[in-house]
């Protein structure tokens, strides 16, 4: 196993709403290893994006990070991102420098009033201090690398003149501009059509190999997980309920929620572009989190008197494999 690059532990992020505080992320532990791909899956609203945003301190009012630590080990001297001052140089270097981030809606993530070149060059200059000419040359080079045809012309195009897929490529180019060691991709293909999705995934994979960077990939799509992931974290209602290597997860899911997710799933590599299978029952409102295990109202294996009362323990199966479920409590070394 390679070196850990980013270690999130006990992360709690909440939002103030009229009806009280929504605990969108409620004690998440995740580790991204250098050069590896971590896929985070879960139903809509389970806190995947909020987790990703917390890493770069992008959570805005009415939200705030309440607890936890996010340790960045990419520098010779590791530091906790959450302890940095907002004006700290290390945070500035992290954002867009060591960590690149791409988003679900590529077109909306670019300012429509400025050319993609302007936005790309701006980022290059912020992180490399290159002069205008050099930055422009680098911008064209980057656009070429991410597979945008005729980059010398496209560099002066406005986002609305490009297709969604092209915009996402431009976003990737921006994310790559300072040779990041981590790329956070928050559902980068959800808004795209299936063929474009495949191309973007291939691009990310080849760039990952070329730049030797780690990828934290957030998705709904188990097909993508199967294809891309080294490790997988399954989230449910603000918590990581299961963590495993990709083969282990598909071969032997532990948590009932994961089993459900995999129930109708795909042979490896096929069925890409397919969303999570629907699971009976609705995702509870995070404001009215069920007592005990949050999944118990929808769980077929729930044990009355236990699951609806007590928080499930985190079971460590060794080798980075964990599950938060009482079903395995009496097995190997439970750490409640």
């Amino acid at each position: 196993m390679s070196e850990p690059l980013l270690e999130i532990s006990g992360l709690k992020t909440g939002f103030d709403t009229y009806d009280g505080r929504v605990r969108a992320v409620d004690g998440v532990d995740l580790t991204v290893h250098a050069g590896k791909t971590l896929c985070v899956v879960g139903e809509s609203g389970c806190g995947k994006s909020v987790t990703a945003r917390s890493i770069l301190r992008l959570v805005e009012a009415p939200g705030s990070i309440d607890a936890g630590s996010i340790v960045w080990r990419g520098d010779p001297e590791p530091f906790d991102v959450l302890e940095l001052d907002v004006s700290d140089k290390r945070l500035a270097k992290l954002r867009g420098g060591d960590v690149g981030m791409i988003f679900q809606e590529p077109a909306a993530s670019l300012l429509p009033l400025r050319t993609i070149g302007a936005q790309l060059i701006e980022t290059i200059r912020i992180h490399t201090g290159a002069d205008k000419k050099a930055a422009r040359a680098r911008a064209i080079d980057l656009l070429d690398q991410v597979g945008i045809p005729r980059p010398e012309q496209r560099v002066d195009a406005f986002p609305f003149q490009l297709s969604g897929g092209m915009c996402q490529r431009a976003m990737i180019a921006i994310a790559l501009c300072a040779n990041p060691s981590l790329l956070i991709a928050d559902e980068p293909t959800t808004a795209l059509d299936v063929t474009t999705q495949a191309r973007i995934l291939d691009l990310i994979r080849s760039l990952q190999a070329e730049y030797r960077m780690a990828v934290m990939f957030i998705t709904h799509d188990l097909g993508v997980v199967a294809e891309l992931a080294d490790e997988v974290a399954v989230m449910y209602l603000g918590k990581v309920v299961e963590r495993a290597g990709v083969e282990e997860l598909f071969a032997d899911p532990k948590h009932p929620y994961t089993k459900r997710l995999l129930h109708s799933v795909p042979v490896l590599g096929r069925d890409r572009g397919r969303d999570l299978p629907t699971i009976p029952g609705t995702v509870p409102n995070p404001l009215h989190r069920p007592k005990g295990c949050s999944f118990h109202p929808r769980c077929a294996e729930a044990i009355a008197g236990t699951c609806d009362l007590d928080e499930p323990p985190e079971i460590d199966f060794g080798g980075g494999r964990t599950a938060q479920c009482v079903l395995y409590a009496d097995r190997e070394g439970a750490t409640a």
Partner: protein
Amino acid sequence: MSVTVDTRPTASQRQLVWWAFKKHRLALISAWLLAFMFFVIALCEFLAPFDDRHRDSAYTTAPPQVLKLWDTDGEEGFRWGLHVDGYTSTQDPESLRISYEADPDDRVEVGFFVKGEEYELFGLIPMERHFMGPHDPEDPMYLMGTTTDGQDLFSQLIYATRVSASVGVIGVLLAFILGIVLGAISGYFGGWADNGIQRVIELIMAVPAIPLWLGLTAALPVEMNPLTRYFIITTLLALVAWTGLAREVRGRFLAMRSEEFVTSARLDGSSHGRVMFRHMLPSFSSHIIAALSLSIPTMILAETALSWLGMGLRPPVVSWGVQLQDASKWSVLSGAPWLLIPGLCVVIVVLAFNFVGDGLRDAADPYKH
């Protein structure tokens, strides 16, 4: 395998809107204020101490009196009794201006449900009792002072509220009928109907409204019957004001046109009119009510400005704008700041309609913010 589904009771759409509205405290206070205003309007003749023709040439531009519960300077010292002090007048020898002062020795007894001028409540029930007034109807009781021709500002204000608020409400209702019908046609059918209506709206919006209003009202014959004038002016205001609403309604219809319930209603054999006004319109009625409430202030402000300029309503009909004409001469205003009270009324009522409208809009659109 059994799945427990979340069974918390769910609130109806109407309840949700009401709850969200109540959260807006300012909007709720404003709503009560407006309710009070409509109550005053309904009982206008009863609540006003004097009627709107009452004129007392002995007291022109007299200052407001203070309502007192007791006095201490009668013969027996302290005594209870609701009253106001009468006036003594002095004339400035140079400017010949008459000024009034409160005279503690001249006690004007004030009572509730006193007899005064006759009127018909709701235009039906003949009555002569007024909610409050001087025991002797000839005595002065001017709680907000008097106007330059000796009318009770307070009574006039109550009557003016009826006129101004009703111009706003009726005008907006007229504008809404136009706006909803044309907006609905535009959004629902699209195509050339939409195109035509949109061009007309753009044209109307391009013409600056107030000069246009001024021109149109100036063209009305001078000797027109005041009531006819009132209706014509309200209609003119409405004719210019419907465009904004039409746009909003159009947008909603456009967005909703292809939704399932519309298609299925059409497949069920409902006519276009039925689909538009029975199925689609009710689904955003709270937005419409919000927009309605937000348009009334514009209308009230326009009427006030027009009337103040002498181009809108004219005496004997009084509106806030007509009342404020009294204050336009600075030589008068400098000695009689109470003439600005109707202006305060305008501001308060306009704010109240705005707050209620904002509250309703937020309540109707809980996801917007």
